[in-house]
Protein backbone atom coordinates (compact mmCIF):
# COMPACT_ATOMS: atom_id res chain seq x y z
CA UNK A 1 0.00 0.00 0.00
CA UNK A 2 1.32 3.43 -0.95
CA UNK A 3 2.37 5.47 2.11
CA UNK A 4 -0.29 7.95 3.07
CA UNK A 5 -3.02 6.21 1.07
CA UNK A 6 -4.80 5.10 4.21
CA UNK A 7 -4.60 8.60 5.68
CA UNK A 8 -6.19 10.00 2.53
CA UNK A 9 -8.93 7.35 2.76
CA UNK A 10 -9.64 8.31 6.39
CA UNK A 11 -9.64 12.01 5.49
CA UNK A 12 -12.19 11.35 2.74
CA UNK A 13 -14.43 9.42 5.16
CA UNK A 14 -14.26 12.28 7.68
CA UNK A 15 -14.96 14.90 5.02
CA UNK A 16 -17.96 12.98 3.66
CA UNK A 17 -19.28 12.44 7.21
CA UNK A 18 -19.16 16.15 8.01
CA UNK A 19 -20.52 16.98 4.57
CA UNK A 20 -23.57 14.75 5.07
CA UNK A 21 -24.19 15.25 8.79
CA UNK A 22 -23.23 18.88 9.41
CA UNK A 23 -23.48 20.32 5.89
CA UNK A 24 -26.69 18.63 4.77
CA UNK A 25 -28.05 17.98 8.30
CA UNK A 26 -29.01 14.42 7.39
CA UNK A 27 -28.54 13.01 10.90
CA UNK A 28 -29.29 9.31 11.17
CA UNK A 29 -30.13 9.12 7.47
CA UNK A 30 -26.38 9.13 6.76
CA UNK A 31 -24.01 6.44 8.05
CA UNK A 32 -21.58 7.16 10.87
CA UNK A 33 -18.38 7.37 8.82
CA UNK A 34 -16.32 8.58 11.79
CA UNK A 35 -16.90 5.27 13.57
CA UNK A 36 -16.09 3.42 10.35
CA UNK A 37 -12.83 5.37 9.95
CA UNK A 38 -11.74 4.62 13.50
CA UNK A 39 -12.75 0.95 13.42
CA UNK A 40 -11.05 0.24 10.10
CA UNK A 41 -7.91 2.09 11.21
CA UNK A 42 -7.87 0.04 14.40
CA UNK A 43 -7.12 -3.01 12.25
CA UNK A 44 -4.09 -1.30 10.71
CA UNK A 45 -2.45 0.87 13.36
CA UNK A 46 -1.30 0.63 16.98
CA UNK A 47 -3.78 1.37 19.75
CA UNK A 48 -2.20 4.67 20.79
CA UNK A 49 -2.41 6.09 17.29
CA UNK A 50 -6.02 4.96 16.81
CA UNK A 51 -7.16 6.40 20.14
CA UNK A 52 -5.52 9.70 19.14
CA UNK A 53 -7.52 9.58 15.92
CA UNK A 54 -10.64 8.77 17.95
CA UNK A 55 -9.88 11.70 20.24
CA UNK A 56 -9.64 14.14 17.35
CA UNK A 57 -12.67 12.84 15.45
CA UNK A 58 -14.68 12.76 18.68
CA UNK A 59 -13.78 16.40 19.29
CA UNK A 60 -14.95 17.28 15.77
CA UNK A 61 -18.30 15.60 16.37
CA UNK A 62 -18.81 16.95 19.90
CA UNK A 63 -17.85 20.49 18.86
CA UNK A 64 -21.16 20.77 17.00
CA UNK A 65 -23.13 20.43 20.24
CA UNK A 66 -23.11 22.13 23.62
CA UNK A 67 -22.05 19.26 25.86
CA UNK A 68 -18.48 18.89 27.10
CA UNK A 69 -15.98 17.49 24.63
CA UNK A 70 -14.83 13.94 25.23
CA UNK A 71 -17.97 11.80 25.19
CA UNK A 72 -17.68 10.75 21.58
CA UNK A 73 -13.89 10.47 21.88
CA UNK A 74 -14.21 8.00 24.75
CA UNK A 75 -16.86 5.93 22.99
CA UNK A 76 -14.86 5.79 19.75
CA UNK A 77 -11.64 5.20 21.71
CA UNK A 78 -13.07 2.19 23.54
CA UNK A 79 -14.28 0.73 20.24
CA UNK A 80 -10.80 1.43 18.78
CA UNK A 81 -8.96 -0.39 21.58
CA UNK A 82 -11.28 -3.38 21.17
CA UNK A 83 -10.66 -3.17 17.42
CA UNK A 84 -6.87 -3.37 17.80
CA UNK A 85 -7.34 -6.32 20.12
CA UNK A 86 -9.54 -8.06 17.52
CA UNK A 87 -6.52 -8.23 15.17
CA UNK A 88 -4.92 -10.77 17.48
CA UNK A 89 -8.03 -12.93 17.43
CA UNK A 90 -8.93 -12.77 13.72
CA UNK A 91 -6.27 -12.13 11.09
CA UNK A 92 -8.24 -12.05 7.85
CA UNK A 93 -10.44 -9.26 6.55
CA UNK A 94 -13.08 -10.90 4.40
CA UNK A 95 -16.23 -8.93 3.60
CA UNK A 96 -18.36 -10.92 6.03
CA UNK A 97 -15.90 -10.44 8.86
CA UNK A 98 -15.56 -6.72 8.12
CA UNK A 99 -19.31 -6.35 8.17
CA UNK A 100 -19.67 -8.22 11.48
CA UNK A 101 -16.72 -6.33 12.96
CA UNK A 102 -18.09 -2.89 11.98
CA UNK A 103 -21.55 -3.86 13.19
CA UNK A 104 -20.25 -4.89 16.62
CA UNK A 105 -17.84 -1.95 16.89
CA UNK A 106 -20.43 0.66 16.00
CA UNK A 107 -22.95 -0.84 18.41
CA UNK A 108 -20.38 -0.86 21.24
CA UNK A 109 -19.52 2.79 20.52
CA UNK A 110 -23.20 3.79 20.52
CA UNK A 111 -23.96 1.81 23.67
CA UNK A 112 -21.01 3.41 25.48
CA UNK A 113 -22.17 6.87 24.45
CA UNK A 114 -25.79 6.23 25.41
CA UNK A 115 -24.85 4.94 28.85
CA UNK A 116 -22.15 7.54 29.52
CA UNK A 117 -23.91 10.76 28.55
CA UNK A 118 -26.98 11.88 30.52
CA UNK A 119 -29.76 12.29 27.98
CA UNK A 120 -32.92 12.31 30.08
CA UNK A 121 -34.13 9.05 28.56
CA UNK A 122 -36.07 6.70 30.84
CA UNK A 123 -34.43 3.29 31.38
CA UNK A 124 -36.95 1.56 29.13
CA UNK A 125 -36.23 3.96 26.31
CA UNK A 126 -32.47 3.36 26.64
CA UNK A 127 -33.01 -0.39 26.23
CA UNK A 128 -35.40 0.22 23.32
CA UNK A 129 -32.87 2.52 21.72
CA UNK A 130 -30.06 0.00 22.08
CA UNK A 131 -32.15 -2.83 20.72
CA UNK A 132 -33.67 -0.97 17.76
CA UNK A 133 -32.10 2.27 16.55
CA UNK A 134 -28.56 1.41 17.61
CA UNK A 135 -28.80 -1.97 15.88
CA UNK A 136 -30.11 -0.35 12.70
CA UNK A 137 -27.41 2.32 12.82
CA UNK A 138 -24.78 -0.40 13.34
CA UNK A 139 -26.12 -2.36 10.39
CA UNK A 140 -26.10 0.76 8.24
CA UNK A 141 -22.50 1.53 9.25
CA UNK A 142 -21.47 -2.07 8.60
CA UNK A 143 -22.84 -2.03 5.05
CA UNK A 144 -21.46 1.43 4.29
CA UNK A 145 -18.05 0.61 5.79
CA UNK A 146 -17.75 -2.65 3.88
CA UNK A 147 -18.58 -0.86 0.65
CA UNK A 148 -16.10 1.92 1.41
CA UNK A 149 -13.34 -0.60 2.11
CA UNK A 150 -14.21 -2.47 -1.06
CA UNK A 151 -13.92 0.78 -2.99
CA UNK A 152 -10.55 1.50 -1.39
CA UNK A 153 -9.28 -1.97 -2.30
CA UNK A 154 -10.56 -1.52 -5.83
CA UNK A 155 -8.33 1.53 -6.16
CA UNK A 156 -5.31 0.41 -4.11
CA UNK A 157 -5.36 -3.32 -4.78
CA UNK A 158 -6.85 -6.30 -2.95
CA UNK A 159 -4.09 -6.43 -0.30
CA UNK A 160 -4.71 -2.90 0.93
Amino acid sequence: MRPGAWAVFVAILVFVHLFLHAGFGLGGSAPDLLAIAVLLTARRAPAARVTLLALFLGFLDDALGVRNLGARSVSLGIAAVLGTWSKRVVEGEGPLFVMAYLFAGKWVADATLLVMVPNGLPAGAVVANLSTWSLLAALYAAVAGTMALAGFRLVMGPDA
Partner: protein
Amino acid sequence: MPGLSGTRRHRRRDLALAISVLLFAFFLLLGPSVWSRPIRHGLRATALKPFIAMRGWIASRQAEREDLREVRAERDSLAAVATAQAVLAEENARLRGLLALRERVGPRFIATQLLRLGTGAAEGTFLIDAGSDDGVVVGSPVFTVGGLVGVVREVSGQSAQAVDWTHPEFRVSGMTADGQVYGVLEARRGSYREEDLLLMTGAPFHSDVRPGSRIVTSGRGEVFPRGIPIGEVLAIESADTGWRKSYMVRPYVRPESAAQVLVGLRDSGLSDLSTAWETQAPRPAPAADSLIPPVTTGTPPSRSP
Protein backbone atom coordinates in the same frame (compact mmCIF):
# COMPACT_ATOMS: atom_id res chain seq x y z
CA MET B 1 1.54 -4.09 11.69
CA PRO B 2 3.69 -2.00 14.03
CA GLY B 3 1.40 -2.39 17.04
CA LEU B 4 1.20 -6.14 16.76
CA SER B 5 4.65 -7.22 15.70
CA GLY B 6 6.45 -5.30 18.44
CA THR B 7 7.73 -6.78 21.65
CA ARG B 8 5.55 -7.20 24.69
CA ARG B 9 7.09 -4.06 26.18
CA HIS B 10 6.18 -2.06 23.13
CA ARG B 11 2.65 -3.38 23.24
CA ARG B 12 2.34 -2.44 26.89
CA ARG B 13 3.63 1.04 26.20
CA ASP B 14 1.23 1.37 23.30
CA LEU B 15 -1.69 0.28 25.46
CA ALA B 16 -0.63 2.64 28.26
CA LEU B 17 -0.58 5.53 25.77
CA ALA B 18 -4.01 4.55 24.45
CA ILE B 19 -5.42 4.44 27.99
CA SER B 20 -3.84 7.85 28.72
CA VAL B 21 -5.62 9.32 25.69
CA LEU B 22 -8.92 7.79 26.83
CA LEU B 23 -8.43 9.14 30.35
CA PHE B 24 -7.70 12.60 28.95
CA ALA B 25 -10.96 12.51 26.99
CA PHE B 26 -12.81 11.25 30.05
CA PHE B 27 -11.44 14.05 32.27
CA LEU B 28 -12.40 16.59 29.66
CA LEU B 29 -15.91 15.15 29.62
CA LEU B 30 -16.25 15.29 33.39
CA GLY B 31 -14.44 18.61 33.82
CA PRO B 32 -15.97 22.08 33.80
CA SER B 33 -17.30 23.33 30.49
CA VAL B 34 -14.69 26.13 30.35
CA TRP B 35 -12.10 23.48 29.48
CA SER B 36 -14.06 22.39 26.41
CA ARG B 37 -15.25 25.78 25.22
CA PRO B 38 -11.99 27.12 23.70
CA ILE B 39 -11.39 23.86 21.80
CA ARG B 40 -15.00 23.79 20.58
CA HIS B 41 -14.90 27.40 19.44
CA GLY B 42 -11.54 26.81 17.77
CA LEU B 43 -12.82 23.80 15.84
CA ARG B 44 -15.99 25.61 14.80
CA ALA B 45 -13.98 28.58 13.60
CA THR B 46 -11.56 26.44 11.57
CA ALA B 47 -12.21 22.83 10.54
CA LEU B 48 -15.98 22.91 10.91
CA LYS B 49 -16.56 26.40 9.57
CA PRO B 50 -17.08 25.41 5.91
CA PHE B 51 -19.61 22.73 6.86
CA ILE B 52 -21.58 25.06 9.14
CA ALA B 53 -21.55 27.73 6.44
CA MET B 54 -22.76 25.16 3.94
CA ARG B 55 -25.58 24.17 6.31
CA GLY B 56 -26.65 27.80 6.48
CA TRP B 57 -26.55 28.13 2.71
CA ILE B 58 -28.58 24.95 2.17
CA ALA B 59 -31.09 25.93 4.86
CA SER B 60 -31.65 29.30 3.25
CA ARG B 61 -32.14 27.70 -0.18
CA GLN B 62 -34.62 25.24 1.34
CA ALA B 63 -36.45 28.07 3.04
CA GLU B 64 -36.76 29.87 -0.26
CA ARG B 65 -38.23 26.81 -1.91
CA GLU B 66 -40.82 26.29 0.79
CA ASP B 67 -43.92 28.36 1.10
CA LEU B 68 -42.12 31.66 1.11
CA ARG B 69 -45.18 33.80 1.33
CA GLU B 70 -46.48 32.04 4.43
CA VAL B 71 -43.16 32.08 6.20
CA ARG B 72 -42.54 35.74 5.49
CA ALA B 73 -46.09 36.70 6.50
CA GLU B 74 -45.59 34.87 9.79
CA ARG B 75 -42.26 36.58 10.38
CA ASP B 76 -43.64 39.99 9.47
CA SER B 77 -46.57 39.47 11.82
CA LEU B 78 -44.22 38.59 14.64
CA ALA B 79 -41.98 41.53 13.90
CA ALA B 80 -45.03 43.80 13.95
CA VAL B 81 -46.14 42.31 17.26
CA ALA B 82 -42.67 42.75 18.72
CA THR B 83 -42.47 46.32 17.46
CA ALA B 84 -45.89 47.14 18.90
CA GLN B 85 -44.81 45.57 22.16
CA ALA B 86 -41.66 47.70 22.21
CA VAL B 87 -43.84 50.81 21.97
CA LEU B 88 -45.96 49.62 24.88
CA ALA B 89 -42.83 48.90 26.89
CA GLU B 90 -41.46 52.37 26.21
CA GLU B 91 -44.73 53.85 27.39
CA ASN B 92 -44.61 51.61 30.41
CA ALA B 93 -41.06 52.73 31.12
CA ARG B 94 -42.12 56.37 30.93
CA LEU B 95 -44.90 55.70 33.43
CA ARG B 96 -42.47 53.90 35.66
CA GLY B 97 -40.15 56.85 35.41
CA LEU B 98 -42.98 59.10 36.51
CA LEU B 99 -43.50 56.83 39.48
CA ALA B 100 -39.77 57.04 40.24
CA LEU B 101 -39.40 53.32 39.68
CA ARG B 102 -36.33 51.89 38.14
CA GLU B 103 -36.49 52.22 34.39
CA ARG B 104 -36.50 48.96 32.54
CA VAL B 105 -35.35 48.28 29.05
CA GLY B 106 -38.17 47.31 26.77
CA PRO B 107 -38.31 44.06 24.82
CA ARG B 108 -36.10 43.83 21.79
CA PHE B 109 -36.15 40.98 19.35
CA ILE B 110 -34.43 40.01 16.13
CA ALA B 111 -35.75 37.74 13.39
CA THR B 112 -33.23 35.12 12.37
CA GLN B 113 -32.82 31.72 10.79
CA LEU B 114 -32.58 28.47 12.70
CA LEU B 115 -30.01 25.89 11.56
CA ARG B 116 -30.19 22.33 12.75
CA LEU B 117 -27.03 20.20 12.49
CA GLY B 118 -27.42 16.49 11.97
CA THR B 119 -24.83 15.05 14.33
CA GLY B 120 -25.61 13.08 17.47
CA ALA B 121 -23.87 15.62 19.69
CA ALA B 122 -26.07 18.38 18.27
CA GLU B 123 -29.31 16.62 19.23
CA GLY B 124 -31.60 19.02 21.07
CA THR B 125 -29.53 22.01 19.94
CA PHE B 126 -29.55 24.39 16.99
CA LEU B 127 -27.59 27.31 15.58
CA ILE B 128 -28.95 30.76 14.83
CA ASP B 129 -27.26 33.17 12.46
CA ALA B 130 -27.20 36.07 14.89
CA GLY B 131 -24.62 36.57 17.62
CA SER B 132 -23.19 38.97 20.13
CA ASP B 133 -22.63 41.54 17.37
CA ASP B 134 -26.42 41.69 17.01
CA GLY B 135 -27.02 41.88 20.76
CA VAL B 136 -27.77 38.19 21.39
CA VAL B 137 -26.57 37.05 24.81
CA VAL B 138 -26.43 33.78 26.72
CA GLY B 139 -29.96 33.20 28.01
CA SER B 140 -31.71 34.97 25.15
CA PRO B 141 -35.12 33.33 24.56
CA VAL B 142 -35.92 31.85 21.14
CA PHE B 143 -39.53 31.59 19.97
CA THR B 144 -41.81 31.60 16.96
CA VAL B 145 -45.33 32.85 16.41
CA GLY B 146 -46.48 29.50 17.86
CA GLY B 147 -44.58 29.79 21.11
CA LEU B 148 -41.34 29.01 22.90
CA VAL B 149 -38.61 27.02 21.14
CA GLY B 150 -35.53 27.25 23.36
CA VAL B 151 -32.82 29.39 24.89
CA VAL B 152 -29.35 30.52 23.77
CA ARG B 153 -26.47 28.71 25.49
CA GLU B 154 -23.32 29.96 23.75
CA VAL B 155 -22.70 33.10 21.72
CA SER B 156 -19.99 34.13 19.30
CA GLY B 157 -19.77 37.22 17.13
CA GLN B 158 -21.97 36.20 14.20
CA SER B 159 -23.82 33.15 15.49
CA ALA B 160 -25.12 31.51 18.63
CA GLN B 161 -25.91 28.01 19.77
CA ALA B 162 -29.14 27.31 21.61
CA VAL B 163 -30.86 24.34 23.20
CA ASP B 164 -34.48 23.57 22.41
CA TRP B 165 -37.03 22.37 24.95
CA THR B 166 -36.21 18.70 24.28
CA HIS B 167 -32.68 19.12 25.65
CA PRO B 168 -32.20 17.53 29.10
CA GLU B 169 -30.71 20.75 30.50
CA PHE B 170 -33.58 22.99 29.37
CA ARG B 171 -35.70 24.57 32.13
CA VAL B 172 -38.31 27.32 32.02
CA SER B 173 -40.53 28.78 34.70
CA GLY B 174 -44.14 28.57 33.56
CA MET B 175 -47.63 29.30 34.76
CA THR B 176 -51.19 28.79 33.68
CA ALA B 177 -52.45 31.63 31.47
CA ASP B 178 -54.64 32.89 34.32
CA GLY B 179 -51.57 33.08 36.59
CA GLN B 180 -53.05 30.78 39.22
CA VAL B 181 -50.55 27.91 39.11
CA TYR B 182 -46.79 28.15 38.72
CA GLY B 183 -44.21 25.47 38.06
CA VAL B 184 -40.95 24.64 36.35
CA LEU B 185 -41.05 22.92 32.97
CA GLU B 186 -38.43 20.44 31.86
CA ALA B 187 -38.14 17.94 29.04
CA ARG B 188 -39.69 14.52 29.42
CA ARG B 189 -38.19 12.26 26.78
CA GLY B 190 -40.38 9.68 25.12
CA SER B 191 -39.27 6.46 23.49
CA TYR B 192 -39.19 8.34 20.19
CA ARG B 193 -38.45 11.99 19.51
CA GLU B 194 -42.04 12.57 18.42
CA GLU B 195 -43.20 11.55 21.89
CA ASP B 196 -41.11 14.15 23.71
CA LEU B 197 -43.17 16.35 26.01
CA LEU B 198 -42.64 18.85 28.79
CA LEU B 199 -43.24 18.12 32.44
CA MET B 200 -44.47 20.96 34.65
CA THR B 201 -43.21 20.20 38.14
CA GLY B 202 -43.60 21.94 41.47
CA ALA B 203 -47.24 22.93 41.09
CA PRO B 204 -49.07 23.20 44.45
CA PHE B 205 -50.80 20.01 45.56
CA HIS B 206 -54.18 21.75 45.81
CA SER B 207 -53.96 23.00 42.23
CA ASP B 208 -56.32 21.54 39.66
CA VAL B 209 -55.19 22.38 36.16
CA ARG B 210 -57.60 21.02 33.57
CA PRO B 211 -56.41 19.31 30.37
CA GLY B 212 -56.24 21.87 27.58
CA SER B 213 -55.21 24.71 29.90
CA ARG B 214 -52.63 26.95 28.31
CA ILE B 215 -49.17 27.25 29.92
CA VAL B 216 -47.10 30.39 29.32
CA THR B 217 -43.76 31.65 30.58
CA SER B 218 -44.04 33.26 33.98
CA GLY B 219 -41.13 35.68 33.63
CA ARG B 220 -39.58 34.44 36.87
CA GLY B 221 -35.83 34.39 36.73
CA GLU B 222 -35.83 37.15 34.12
CA VAL B 223 -34.55 34.84 31.42
CA PHE B 224 -37.77 34.39 29.46
CA PRO B 225 -40.18 37.30 29.01
CA ARG B 226 -43.52 36.76 30.69
CA GLY B 227 -46.39 35.54 28.53
CA ILE B 228 -44.76 33.46 25.76
CA PRO B 229 -47.00 30.44 25.05
CA ILE B 230 -45.33 27.14 25.91
CA GLY B 231 -47.99 24.49 25.46
CA GLU B 232 -51.19 23.02 26.80
CA VAL B 233 -51.75 20.61 29.65
CA LEU B 234 -52.38 17.03 28.61
CA ALA B 235 -52.93 15.35 31.96
CA ILE B 236 -51.62 15.03 35.45
CA GLU B 237 -48.48 12.89 35.53
CA SER B 238 -49.20 9.34 36.60
CA ALA B 239 -46.12 9.14 38.82
CA ASP B 240 -47.31 12.13 40.83
CA THR B 241 -46.70 11.70 44.57
CA GLY B 242 -45.99 13.84 47.62
CA TRP B 243 -47.04 17.40 48.27
CA ARG B 244 -46.74 18.78 44.79
CA LYS B 245 -48.29 17.97 41.48
CA SER B 246 -46.74 17.52 38.07
CA TYR B 247 -48.49 17.95 34.76
CA MET B 248 -47.62 16.69 31.30
CA VAL B 249 -47.60 19.56 28.81
CA ARG B 250 -47.71 19.27 25.04
CA PRO B 251 -45.59 22.14 23.62
CA TYR B 252 -47.09 24.25 20.86
CA VAL B 253 -43.91 24.31 18.78
CA ARG B 254 -42.00 21.24 17.67
CA PRO B 255 -38.35 22.31 17.40
CA GLU B 256 -37.80 20.40 14.18
CA SER B 257 -40.57 22.39 12.47
CA ALA B 258 -39.15 25.82 13.35
CA ALA B 259 -37.16 27.58 10.61
CA GLN B 260 -37.56 31.31 11.24
CA VAL B 261 -37.41 32.40 14.86
CA LEU B 262 -37.34 35.52 16.99
CA VAL B 263 -34.46 35.87 19.44
CA GLY B 264 -34.48 38.18 22.43
CA LEU B 265 -31.67 40.66 22.78
CA ARG B 266 -30.13 42.03 25.98
CA ASP B 267 -32.57 42.37 28.88
CA SER B 268 -35.47 40.99 26.86
CA GLY B 269 -36.20 38.69 29.80
CA LEU B 270 -37.45 41.68 31.78
CA SER B 271 -40.33 42.35 29.42
CA ASP B 272 -43.92 41.15 29.42
CA LEU B 273 -45.26 39.70 26.18
CA SER B 274 -48.66 38.63 27.54
CA THR B 275 -50.44 41.16 25.36
CA ALA B 276 -48.53 40.07 22.26
CA TRP B 277 -50.37 36.75 22.29
CA GLU B 278 -53.32 38.02 24.34
CA THR B 279 -52.82 35.04 26.56
CA GLN B 280 -55.42 36.12 29.08
CA ALA B 281 -58.01 37.70 26.83
CA PRO B 282 -60.76 35.86 24.94
CA ARG B 283 -59.64 34.81 21.50
CA PRO B 284 -60.58 37.42 18.88
CA ALA B 285 -61.79 36.49 15.42
CA PRO B 286 -58.99 37.24 12.94
CA ALA B 287 -59.55 40.16 10.64
CA ALA B 288 -60.29 39.42 7.01
CA ASP B 289 -56.95 40.87 5.95
CA SER B 290 -55.00 39.33 8.82
CA LEU B 291 -51.80 37.55 7.89
CA ILE B 292 -52.23 35.19 10.78
CA PRO B 293 -54.51 32.23 10.07
CA PRO B 294 -57.43 31.41 12.37
CA VAL B 295 -56.28 29.65 15.52
CA THR B 296 -56.74 25.91 15.58
CA THR B 297 -56.45 23.46 18.46
CA GLY B 298 -52.88 23.27 19.74
CA THR B 299 -51.87 26.70 18.51
CA PRO B 300 -52.00 29.70 20.81
CA PRO B 301 -54.01 32.67 19.66
CA SER B 302 -51.97 35.35 17.98
CA ARG B 303 -52.47 39.02 17.83
CA SER B 304 -53.34 40.45 14.47
CA PRO B 305 -50.79 42.94 13.19
